[in-house]
């Protein structure tokens, strides 16, 4: 199975080699999409995780025990192209540059990079961005 997850690390766990354990102990293949982990701060890691279902579930259990919040990205951010007037204000609050202006100044959205932080939703002046479950 393959799932996109957001892991939120409380400050005390950011120094632990969590991904090492996921790979070594649970045979998971981890493709990191975005990571922001600094000592003493809440860390965020967005990754696509592949592995056997049983081991995957055990890994989630392990993470929860460490106090790490696990969220599955079953939702999507959607951009209403008709409503959007391509101002680009959303690009300044998008931490992973999933939303960006291309060389012609048109807005582009790279869904793969989106970590569902939802900053763009409240930023968009025409309310053209929404969360679809």
């Amino acid at each position, binding site marked *: 199975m393959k799932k996109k997850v957001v892991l939120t690390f409380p400050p005390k766990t950011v120094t632990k080699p969590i991904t090492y354990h996921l790979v070594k102990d649970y045979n998971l293949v981890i493709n990191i999409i975005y990571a922001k982990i600094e000592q003493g701060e809440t860390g965020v890691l967005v990754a696509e995780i592949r592995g056997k279902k049983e081991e995957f579930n055990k890994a989630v259990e392990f993470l929860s025990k460490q106090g790490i919040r696990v969220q599955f990205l079953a939702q999507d951010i959607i951009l209403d192209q008709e409503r959007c007037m391509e101002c680009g204000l959303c690009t300044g609050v998008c931490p992973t540059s999933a939303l960006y202006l291309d060389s*012609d100044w048109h807005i582009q959205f790279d869904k793969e990079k989106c970590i569902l932080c939802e900053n763009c939703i409240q930023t968009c002046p025409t309310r053209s961005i929404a969360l679809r479950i």
Partner: protein
Amino acid sequence: MAQKTIAEINEKIKKGEAVVVTAEEMVEIVKNEGAKKAAQKVDVVTTGTFGPMCSSGAFLNFGHTNPPMKFFEVYLNEVVAYGGLAACDVYIGATQPSEDRGIEYGGAHVIEDLIAGKPIRLAAYNKWPTDCYPGTEIEAFITKDTINEAYLYNPRNAYQNYAAATNSSNRTLKTYMGILLPNFGNVTYSTAAQLSPLLKDPEYRTIGIGTRIFLGGTVGYIVWQGTQHNPTRKRDENGVPVGPAGTLALIGNLKEMSTRYIRAATYTGYGCSLFVGVGIPIPVLDEDVAHKAGLSDSELKTIILDYAVPSNSRPIIKEVTYAELRSGEVEINGKKVKTAPLTSYARSREIAEQLKSWIKEGRFNLTEPVAPLPKDSVFRPFTPYREGAE
């Protein structure tokens, strides 16, 4: 120095011989061939901008009810409009929030819905019935086609070089410059930069009162200098003010406008605003006009203000060029900070192109200003009257 007159340029437009380029194209021409050659070659430079302009609104006349009524207290889709005018004239301002949905739907949205041809619920009341106007209450739906006049009259648009914004504090700020992330988390800027009308005629040599323009997808006019017009701000070697300076008051027929070029906006935690599409043609009269219309983003500068300080004179963080701002990041205190525009550059470019094709097709000719914009007025902060003081 080659000199052209507006009359000569109009003659060329009539014959379909005018050379019309956008301000972006002019940047390239001046860079490659110099201002002197550009002045000989190019007749008109078209500018464009599509950004939020809070000081906007519309005058509407609904026609007289029977019995006639003075519209004193007026709501359009639950948004308060001002009725302190003759019987059924009202003014709806872009930033007025609605009574029911707050800032998610306001005056700007009413204006956009009117342009879109949607029915709008009108509710008006009169607490002072008179012999002239005995009516006391009307509740009905209207559209732009059922009413008499509907025209945009925007007291302050097309700011000449608005300042960019950032946030030095440790909390997120919700502003009309968008969400400003803590600790210099981002920088936002509100201009079409090298496409922006008043940046390309910085000393108002050709743009003045009476100038015919593109407004919201149709023809409009400059009626006056805008409120807070501040032409005496410090200028650089090209005569371009570094920071917010001149402004324009604009007028145009709402009924002919398009929602592609007039759009309602809501800035979370701040309020409503209206995106206004403005395009102004610049007749290339001589080398000086050509040089200035050809200034590029790397030659145009603005200031970044710190919105963490809630004052009418916010501290300047630094001066930057639009090339830096538009690159996607600027440096503040040695750290790279992401930048984002409020103005749609893609649609600003589209407006300049649209105006260019109107002129090329001979559908739009240029106007001599009826009067110049003031160049010496002073912009002052709120100053209460004190007897005996200057």
